[in-house]
Structures are given as C-alpha cells and as structure tokens.
C-alpha cells in the first residue's frame, strides 16, 4: 500500500531522481560523450566539439525539460487544489492551448527582431485569456463536468483559431514549422530559448511560493477557508497569474506538452497524505522527472524521425486520463 511519507524524505528522493535524470540527459544522446574528457574540455576550451555538444545542445535541452516539467507539475497541482477538482490541469482547462494560440499569433505576426520577447509574451497572454475564459464560463463552484466542458470549448476554440492561422499561412514551410512546434518538443532547444522562458517561469513559481497553506484550507470549501482568514479573490488571481506566466512561458518555448500537469499530482498525492500544500513542491519535482524521462525516452527510441516528446506524454497521459474518468465514475455511483 502506498502511504504518506515524511516531506523531507519524499522531496529528497524526488530531488535525487530529478538530478540523476538531469545528468543522464546531459550525457546521453546520439553522440555518447565521455564525462571527464568533456568536462575538462569544457573548462579548457569552450569551442571544442564535445564542449559545444554539452553546452549548446545538451545543457539547454535538459534545463528546459527540468524547468518546463516542473512548471507543468506545479501548476497542475495548484489548479487542482484551487478548483478542488482532480481533473483541472493546464492542458484540460485551456491554459496550455491558450498559450499555444498566443505563441502562434506571436510567431505569425511577430517580426524577427521582436520575436524573442513576443513569443513568451504571446504565450503568457494567451494562457491567461484562455484560463480566465474557462473560469468565467464554468463559474465559481464549478463541478467537474462543467469545468471539463468549458475546457473542451475553449480548447477547441483555441485550436480552431490556430488552424485558421495555419490555413492562412503564406508558405507551407511556416505551416510545417508551426505544426511541429505544436507537437511539443525539446529538440532544437538553445540557451536562448531557456533565457526567454526563465523570467516568466520564475515569476510564476514565486507567486506560488506562499499559497500552500491557503490551498490546504480550501480542502474544507470556500466558506470555511474564508472564515479561516484566507483572502479568496486574491488567492484566485495569484494562481491564475502564476499559471499564465509559468505555463505561458514554458509552452511558448516547448510547444504543447500535455498531461504532465494532470498525471503527476495524481501519482504523488497519496505520498503527501492528500494535502494540497505539501503536494506543490513534490509535484513540481515530479513534473521535472517525468519530462526529463520522457525526453530521454524519445532519444532512445530507434526511429528515423525523432518522436516529439509531446507526442510521448500524450500517448502515456491519455490512457491515464481515461482511467481517471472510469475511476471517478465508479466513485460517484
């Protein structure tokens, strides 16, 4: 039986797993690199081939997987806690597809010089807009069904608008680029990408630093939480803004990587005794682990064309989603 663990022990295990995967991700790939030689060369001469592979190819890819994965896990846990709904996650309630739409618009209209900033900005605005729309559509005390329906509606609207833009795209090359980007991928990551995504990500994380206790209180419902001194409207804004900033920034760099925000909080919940506040940190680490692992798996698969990591997480995540639906159906009967 999976049971509650001490927080320090759980986080220790997760940190150990995340750092091993991070190192593995640095060292493993189409080109195997000898550890010591590479490190030495990196320090001696940053322009050597091994050093370039490490710092220009592997490092940004691993860093982005680490940060984007953590964002997805963290935001999934925060949204599920706030909406008290196990199916709320950035992917399902529109935050991710909104970010994708915003980023596509930025790619489409953004001039080359501006794109560095317009891409994450588009992602953040798109994410915020979509999340708020779903929230307004579903209402404050939305049940699972209403929330999912609102999410479906906004997701399909965002996808329809993306399709429209693709439809109108001037060159087939641009279409292909956008489609591939939307599948969600970490290949072709550069340090520049990482720097682009970093500010929004860190800002979003910082906003979520102190919400744990309020989310714990929300376990007992909104009225009780308010009577316990929680400023509910402020909490809501804080979380929406945080999710928009962090998910918007991540998605604008990696494309849509689905299901991590849904799956990870679920897997870790029993280990934290179902306490939403404790789940946040664990879920962030869990998200990083899952995305790093998925990205390593993608590199291991013997395929002619590299399988996109977003495709892998969706292939694993969708059946898990089905399992959750079946489980909740049985629960409600």
């Amino acid at each position: 039986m999976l049971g509650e663990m001490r927080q320090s022990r759980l986080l220790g295990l997760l940190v150990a797993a995340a750092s091993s995967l991070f190192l593995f991700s640095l060292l493993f790939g189409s080109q195997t690199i000898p550890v010591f030689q590479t490190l030495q060369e990196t320090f001696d001469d940053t322009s050597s081939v091994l050093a370039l592979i490490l710092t220009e190819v592997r490092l940004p890819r691993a860093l982005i997987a680490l940060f984007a994965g953590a964002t997805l896990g963290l935001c999934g846990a925060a949204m599920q806690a706030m909406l008290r709904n196990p199916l709320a996650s950035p992917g399902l309630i529109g935050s991710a597809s909104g970010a994708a739409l915003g980023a596509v618009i930025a790619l489409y209209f953004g001039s080359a010089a501006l794109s560095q900033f317009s891409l994450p900005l588009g992602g953040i605005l798109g994410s915020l807009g979509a999340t708020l729309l779903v929230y307004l559509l579903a209402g404050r005390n939305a049940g699972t069904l209403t929330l999912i329906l609102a999410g479906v509606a906004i997701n399909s609207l965002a996808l329809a608008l993306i399709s429209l833009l693709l439809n109108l795209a001037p060159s087939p090359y641009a279409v292909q680029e956008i489609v591939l980007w939307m599948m969600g991928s970490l290949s072709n990551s550069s340090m520049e990408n990482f720097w682009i995504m970093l500010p929004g990500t860190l800002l979003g994380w910082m906003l979520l630093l102190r919400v744990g206790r309020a989310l714990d209180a929300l376990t007992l419902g909104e009225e009780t939480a308010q009577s316990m001194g929680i400023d509910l409207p402020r909490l809501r804004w804080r979380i929406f803004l945080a999710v928009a900033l962090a998910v918007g920034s991540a998605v604008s760099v990696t494309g849509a990587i689905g299901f991590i925000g849904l799956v990870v909080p679920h897997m870790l919940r029993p280990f934290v005794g179902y306490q939403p506040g404790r789940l946040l940190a664990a879920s962030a680490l869990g998200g990083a682990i899952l995305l790093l692992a998925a990205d390593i798996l993608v590199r291991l698969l013997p395929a002619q064309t590299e399988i996109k990591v977003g495709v892998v997480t969706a292939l694993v995540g969708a059946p898990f989603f089905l399992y959750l639906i079946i489980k909740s159906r049985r629960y409600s009967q």
Partner: protein
Amino acid sequence: MSLLRGTTLSLAFDDQPILEAVDIELDKGEMLGLIGPNGAGKSSLLRCLAGSARTDSGVLQLGEQRFEDIPRNERARRIAYLPQQTEVHWPLSVERIIELGRIPHLEPWGKLSERDQQVIESVIADADLLPFRHRPFNTLSGGERARVLLARALAAEPEILLADEPVAALDPAHQLDVMAMLAEHCSQGNAVIVVLHDLRLAAHFCQRLQLLHQGRTLAVGKPGEVLTPDNLENAYQIHLSDRQDAIDTLLNITWKRIPR
C-alpha cells in the same frame, strides 16, 4: 461589554431582502441558539458573522473593535465557523483535517509548534476521535464526520464558535454528543452561536434563543420566553396547544446519553 455585537445588520440578494435590521449580541460563556423556519436568514446571519459574506449595512463589533479594523488572521483566530455542509475535497486523514484548524495561528512557513500539537491532541481526545485519527475522512460515518469537523473548528481555540446546524442528520445520541461539546466550549469561557432546527435541543442547551422570521428578529430571550405558542405559530406555522404539559415537553429532553 458583550463579546460580539451586531447592530441593524441588513443584507439583500438581487433586491430580495435576506436580513432586515437584525441585532445580535453574544456574551462570554453563553450559548445562543439561532432558530427559525427555513429561509429565515439564520445561515446568512452566521455567514456575515464568520466573515464569508458581507452585510450591506449595519455594524459588527468584536469586543470594542469593529470587524473592518481587525486583521483577517486575527479574526480567524477568534471566530471559527462550521458551515452547514462541509465537504472535504481530498481524502485527508482525521488528524490532518483537525490540523487545518490551526492555520490561523501559523506563520506562512511555520510548522506546527509544540503548543499546536498539544491543542490538536486534546481536541482529538475530547471529540473521542482517538481510534479514528489515521482514518481517511471519506470512510467515516455521518456522526464521526460531524465530530471531526467540529473538532477542526475547536482546534482554532476560538473565543466564538459559529455552528450552522451541527446536529442535522445525526441520531439522538450523536446529537447530544455534539451539543455537549459545544456546551463544554462555552464553559471554558468562550461563546457559541448555534443554528438549530430541533427546538428541544435548543431549549435544553442554549441560555438564550433568537427566533428569526423573514429576515427579522421575531423574539429573543430565554427559551421559555421565546418558544411561546404565539411565536411558534407566527414563525413556523405550527400549532402548540396552550396546555402547560405541551410547553413542558417542548422545553425538556426526556432522554439522556448513556456514557461510553
């Protein structure tokens, strides 16, 4: 100086008046029963006192201080609220739920102190929850759940506890258990406002009753003064025979809890 005082509290929802110029007062050590038919405004009044709804007009005071001047956290430490139906959204264990009651006392990053732990332990023991402390909430029976939620509210060590129908859907023995916990809280120098539909429980346990009807106070005072045939007829549309034995029956509970 009364512990809690509300003066001319009014609240409307979509132009529909919910509360109209209601006064309420609570003294130290007192259990005040809020009674009245469904839709009389009892729960709304309690929500306003708990800070989860705002009155449109009127003045709320805690001791000498106005509600608006008291920081959120301090108010949460002094007033605990037990809503009518509390859902627990995740299958937390009994102990973890009761720990939530200490939230108003904790620093944002602080852990439970030794004192917090002591309070939690004594609340768990007082509520007879020792055998259940590690059980997930969703596996408990209705009576056990009611005790857990009440224990959560008491864990905040509030001067004032606001309980909205805490005995609804409980069997007679569990009803007496919960009322006894509330009475015990009052006897420790605190005060309780409790919404009740069971007039006998109200008459037996509360020092004063306040009868609400259509958003107004119809009567307030000692149980015998409030539960008169006239008042019951006006508020509840029920007829109580004027014979003294009928009134005696209403004012007395003829059963007792067998000690466990």
